[in-house]
């Protein structure tokens, strides 16, 4: 679904969303700027219930280890620029998107995550609202 991510400061970011139950989501944003480590960040207790933005532009290259697939993530949603979706050499890994889908975790893609993080850093505002395209109009 195409939609718009709106910050409390009034800035908005167009994006696509998957695994959404509702047409509108409200939440609190947090970001992770590590270049590797998304596998750990998703389960980090300090991100519990938050929507996690990754600054690295491509997330999911190593999937999620099969041993973790039955563990729910702590984050409420994942916000990325791009997600890697191709198959992996070993059947011991699950594509990240499939894992998130399994746990019905909203995934926002094609987000200018760099700019979004900049906005958060400048304004200290961390709440957002996501609205699907039909509702924007």
């Amino acid at each position: 679904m195409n939609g718009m991510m709106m910050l409390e400061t009034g800035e908005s970011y167009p994006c696509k969303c998957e695994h959404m139950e509702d047409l509108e989501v409200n939440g609190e944003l947090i970001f992770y700027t590590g270049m590797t480590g998304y596998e750990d960040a998703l389960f980090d207790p300090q991100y519990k219930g938050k929507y996690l933005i990754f600054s690295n532009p491509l997330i999911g290259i190593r999937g999620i280890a099969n041993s973790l697939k039955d563990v729910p993530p702590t984050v409420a949603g994942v916000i990325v620029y791009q997600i890697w979706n191709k198959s992996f050499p070993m059947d011991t890994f699950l594509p990240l998107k499939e894992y998130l889908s399994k746990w019905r975790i909203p995934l926002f893609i094609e987000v200018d995550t760099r700019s979004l993080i900049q906005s958060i850093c400048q304004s200290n505002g961390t709440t957002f609202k996501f609205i699907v395209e039909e509702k924007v109009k």
Partner: protein
Amino acid sequence: MTKRLNVKKILVIGSGPIVIGQAAEFDYAGTQACMALKEDGYEVILVNNNPATIMTDEIFADAIYCEPLTVETVEKIIQKERPDALLATFGGQTGLNLAKQLSEQGIVQKYGVKVIGTSIDSIQKGEDRSLFRQLMVEIGEPVPESSIVSTAEEAIAFANDIGYPVIIRPAYTLGGTGGGFAHNEVELKGKVEKGLKESPIHQCLIERSIAGWKEVEYEVMRDASGTCITICNMENIDPVGIHTGDSIVVAPVQTLTHEEQMMLKTSAIKIISALEIIGGCNIQFALHPDNQQYYLIEVNPRVSRSSALASKATGYPIAWIAAKLSTGWMLDQLKNPVTQSTFAHIEPTIDYIALKFPRWPFDKFQQVDRKLTTQMKATGEIMAVDRTFERAIQKAVVSLEGDQQGLILPELKGWSKEQLLDIIVEADDRRFFALLEMLRKGESVEFLHSQTKIDLFFLNVMKSLIDLEREISGLSLQEVSKEQLFHWKQKGFSDEAIAALLSAKSIDVTAKRKEFGIIPSYKNIDTCAGLHPSASHYYYSTYGGKNEQAKSDKEKVLIIGSGPIRIGQGIEFDYCSVHGVMELKEAGYETIMINNNPETVSTDFVTADRLYFEPLTLESVMDVIEAEGVDKVIVQLGGQTAISLAHDLERAGLDLLGTTGELIDLLEDRQLFYQLLDELKIPHIEGDIAESYEDLMGITEKIPFPILIRPSYVIGGKGMHRFYSKESFEQWLNSYDKIQYPVLVDRYLPGKEVEADILCDGEQVSMPAIIEHIEKAGIHSGDSMAILPAVSLKKDEEQKIFEYAQKLVKKLSYKGIMNIQYVLYDGVVYVLEVNPRASRTVPLVSKVCGMNAARESVLLMTGKKQLPIASMPIFSHETDGNYAVKYPVFSNFALQGLDTLVGPEMKATGEGIAFGKTVEEALHKIFLPQKNKKPYGKELYCLTDEIDKELLKNAEHAGLAVVTDVKIKEWTKKEEAFVFYAPCEDEKSKVERMIAEQSRMLTFTEKESLMAFLSSLHVTGYEVAPLQQWKMKKPEVMKL
């Protein structure tokens, strides 16, 4: 800033002339180091004999010694200058080796010079294989089973013990010279023998081969208090087995798990701490793709090519910070120069992909073995930055300026899968394009992975590009939607590539793209992923997201850089671009630089007001122009790369300061050029264009032999042939069935060649010096030795040279800088060639004449300066006692199969300079390293049909014994063997030249070069002096 170290004078060692494995990255590192030291108030003494470097300019050091990089010379400099400290970790392997020798011979101790930064002890621990191994065993870090050998027998015994394949690594060599893999005893024997010869300490390391493992590099920094940070990690797309300088490399690492990454990072920090590095260090690992096993491959305890790349990839200036750390600063005391708001101990984080692609010289050297091994062969590299991996790849490919169309390398079209697989498995430089071609033919990524061990991620990205290619080619331009076009742009397809796939015109694709409002955004490279505000204007383009660049309303000039270093277009163009930028900045313009070479000073974000790391294609340049609102462009400083954009930029309505597209045509199109010279009554060499076989036969009837034949568009003399007789020409013609017409036919005059770089204001000309080549015309100017100022010209010849330059400038109303080449034959001065741009010799002329031609040229281009009328200063040998000799430096050691015979096609990768009170003294300095290497050398082996009497006399006079009938292999092993002279083109000469090259024998292929060498043998002593003392002081005004 204030001094942390209680010393006054610091001696910095540079890396010398550019060779494969040691290129412009050390000019960047050295320039940064000098700036960092000067900022703190130290007096900087620099030794580097590469004139084309920015670091050897007076603004960066207090005294610059363009003197040979040998122990005895550096000792003389130390004696004279009495520096308090020595900084050697910025001059590549050359700098480290010198520092090591200076310490071993007790010279630093004798003069009480303190080695700052990483200690000699640490350098040795990092560089000496056995010490390094011992240290790693102590701290429990894994190194592959290996053994140090001094004979082939020891090597074979060890290999029999651990099993094949093994790697051979000679100790202390540049770019791994002489190394390689051996799969059996025969291969091992050959390679070890060669490697032992290459190694200055006659040692080789034989090591278990871990070919096929992932190759990962870490750039780590450490201060004296023990704080360590990693600046960047990088992954080679090509697994272990190909030198990292010849690999496609991506930053940050892509395919490692977090656990693997943390494991290697921990190891890297452990190693830099154990080595007690102060400054920067590069650590290379091999990681098993599946089981987390790893080995250390190599440690470079200094700044390197990889640290330059990491600096440009992250924005974090490693060399600058490393120089500060050397003088006692701690990481947490230094501001991060990019953000100006954070400190240097914070590890950079990046939110994009930076991809490095090597630039190889095989387009010029088709006879050279193009297989990629542990011996580096690339002459340069480019970096591409984007938010998507796909677009980073595509930006990299267009930046190569090769023959490829989009992602297609035309020469591979029609190859069978078997043929393609050959160059994929036994990798050569076309491997990447061969992989794409295989995917185009429907081969699976799994199969290619099994053959190459390249990670499936990389292969899948490549496959996604091929899938997109297919999608595009199934459509027509009319039916393309906005979403589709945006997606293709996001994935990096250029307008030209899209047009080719759609069978449409490039301008129509661009028009449609703009109609849809699809233009790139520019993002900042800020070391911190946007977490902190950044003060630098360092940008890359991407499709999608917000634009972070805002144009100012200042008057601005765009300077187009020269791209990757290749033979024929080297560091000198970066020198010109950087000086152009600096002068324009001082003149009050906002300067905008666009370039894609990560090794250089021009792509340091502090150089221009705004830096765009972008391909040098019309599309990328136009995008920057539109984003910045530029209307003035300088194309004269960026070599042929920039010149080739001139027409299109002009068509787009831009002002090409000082020049026009039409003018460039007039000088580059042979027919128009000869018409122009005829009109101006300037003599030119007889020549014609042959459109067909019949034409060619007719022309060769008219023009007397010897003749020169070449394709109509040439750079660096590519594909040029010289024939002395009708017979040899016809022989070539018969053996050559694929002549591409038109070809240029010129009479070859074996006369004296001179050239001049001239400054012009549209009317008047300033000619700082005339450069006289030592070799006769016919040898590419980049491969010949040359004397400044000219020594043997008559007054009327000098006047003619000047007069023709003035006539040309007046006629063309040209402003800026140009290079004119002349031949003097039989009392006539001929104009050979005019290059409407800065040339290779600009830095040379600037340094010798004590002015800065590149800087002056931009003032002339912008009209800020006019030259005085009718009084042209010209330096000549009568007015000043000093001479400079420029000499070519070759990297033939790295290019197996290359004949070292010099000719019209350029082969040198770099150049050096030497000064003297006489020409002979300067020549003596040039050959000093070879003379030192051969203390008992006294034999000159001449391989010619008949020995010239003059030569024989000079050789005897110089105390050499001429030998003629020797077996080259045995002879090169003799300690009396000194010089080899082989000027002929026959097969025997060629083979013997290659053998001589393998044993690094001093070889000459032109009589004039040999005579110059012989004349230098009479010199016994020499004087070292700073550039400031050598340069010309008294300009003579030439009356017209």
